[in-house]
């Protein structure tokens, strides 16, 4: 039972990651390879607030969201005007820089040793969120919150402009909207929400090290999103469930561990190719990424 709950918590974390990325990729056509960097920044700021400042849950969450948003703003300001592939490269560079800093600044992050013993966050200084069932409930609440905000945003005039940018930037420009400002806004919002996933991950696993936030992780998040499909809520959920459940299923097939890990990569790759050929909008998406 604990095992199933663990998987559900992991799925919830990925749903938050993919829905936030969906705001960028699916709604605004901004492909970012820096998602894991923001995930990591969120997680490390969570630890900072919990272990050094001894803050309770809500301030910790707000601070890590705020700081991640701030970092994304720093990335967005110079790079958001870049077109297409160049923007992807800028986010890739950012991802590599953040990972290198986390890995090598040993006095701050303990580098590859990681940070163990992350304390359980306290809600209003009273209720401690520790153990698997409280975390399950907490992760569901956060997923609900993320979905709520996402739906609010995409169904508002703001979301309409984002969709416009996705379809036809020039046209949005001629209709008098400052495309750059909209892109910066959506980038900052999406990164802020990724910090929620970082928060849940750090406090749930109670141990983090930089290897959880590599470029591979960014690609993994994107492939979860692309497998599931973009432009709506169903897609990221379907994609997250798929990418988390698949390795667990492979475990039951009884393959040795060393083979299973590689096979997982092969299956993801194969699945992406098959989807591209036969279902370019993903499992449950309603928009095909260009």
């Amino acid at each position, binding site marked *: 039972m604990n095992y199933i709950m663990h998987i559900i918590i992991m799925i919830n974390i990925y749903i938050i990651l993919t829905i936030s990325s969906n705001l960028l990729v699916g709604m605004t056509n901004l492909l970012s390879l820096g998602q894991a960097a923001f995930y990591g920044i969120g997680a490390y700021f969570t630890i900072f607030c919990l272990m050094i400042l001894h803050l309770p849950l809500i301030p910790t969450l707000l601070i890590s969201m705020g700081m991640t948003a701030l970092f994304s703003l720093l990335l967005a300001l110079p790079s958001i005007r870049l077109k297409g592939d160049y923007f992807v490269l800028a986010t890739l560079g950012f991802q590599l820089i953040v990972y290198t800093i986390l890995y090598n600044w040993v006095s701050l992050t303990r580098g590859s040793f990681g940070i163990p013993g992350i304390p359980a966050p306290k809600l209003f200084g009273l209720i401690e969120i520790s153990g698997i069932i409280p975390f399950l409930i907490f992760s569901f609440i956060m997923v609900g919150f993320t979905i709520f*905000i996402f739906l*609010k*945003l995409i169904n*508002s*005039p*703001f*979301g*309409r*402009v984002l*969709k*416009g940018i*996705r*379809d*036809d930037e*020039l*046209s*949005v*420009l*001629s*209709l*008098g*909207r*400052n*495309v750059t400002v*909209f892109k910066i*806004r*959506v980038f900052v*919002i999406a990164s802020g929400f990724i910090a929620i996933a970082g928060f849940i991950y750090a406090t749930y696993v109670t141990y983090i090290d930089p290897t959880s936030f590599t470029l591979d992780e960014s690609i993994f998040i994107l492939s979860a999103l692309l497998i599931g499909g973009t*432009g709506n809520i169903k897609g990221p959920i379907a994609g997250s469930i798929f990418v988390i459940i698949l390795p667990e299923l492979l475990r039951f097939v009884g393959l040795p561990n060393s083979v299973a890990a590689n096979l997982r990569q092969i299956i993801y790759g194969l699945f992406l190719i098959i989807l591209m050929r036969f279902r370019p909008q993903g499992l449950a998406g309603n*928009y095909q990424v260009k």
Partner: protein
Amino acid sequence: MNNDILKIEDLNKSFTRNIINMRGKEENERFNIIDELDLFIPESKITALIGGNGAGKTTLFNIISRFTESDSGRISFHNNQWLNILKQPAYKLKHIGIGRLFQDNHIFQQMTVLENMLIADDSEWGERPFISLFKANKNKEIEKKRTKKVEKILFELFGINNPFWQKRKDLASSLSFGQQRLLGLARLFMGDYKLVLLDEPTAGVNPDLVKTICIIIKRMVKEKGLTVFLIEHNMKVVLEIADFCSFMSHGKITAFGSPKDVIGDENVRRTYLGM
């Protein structure tokens, strides 16, 4: 005598193009696509711009829309006061009153017909993320008003039971090319423009639709007092709707006047119409 709304003075734009010279070697050559161009557009009239392929018509439109940077020159636009639009960023042009219809429509394909109209609305209320999160009620109210406006515009332009209103919840990609063109024109009625630039509004649509488009363009001027500046290859349309016509050749305006005079001009007939 009419007042001018747009003055283009001494405008230059050159590209570098790669050519093979007489000795068979590659070399870069400066090529003036817009060459010391002067043009005044009269207010509340329809001015057509004609000229052969590669004469620089669309480049001129792109410079006015601020999608392309010009090398030198001045374009002033009159809306209460004269303003040099070459100093404005592209997104500001709508706010100072210049709208644009694209040659290949540029409709938002993955959005519904209604969304396509709503996004073109003059007011941009609710497009800040925090407002869309915290002011849900006012948002709804404004969206209702906008939807009413769309209904009214579509009704006035295309009559009762028009396909656009009936298909408002369908994706714009389900419309035919001609219908998308009409939607692009209808979209311009949502904004508060003074001048609209139409890049070949009748290209690639059937004769029935050409008539509809001509009627819509005339209504833009008559009912909304807009100034229309359009690129057009269909001489019938030019003769029918345009008040003035300018002929562009090799980056310059070589003839300007009434459509009859310009199309009757010997030079125009020889170089452009091939007669």
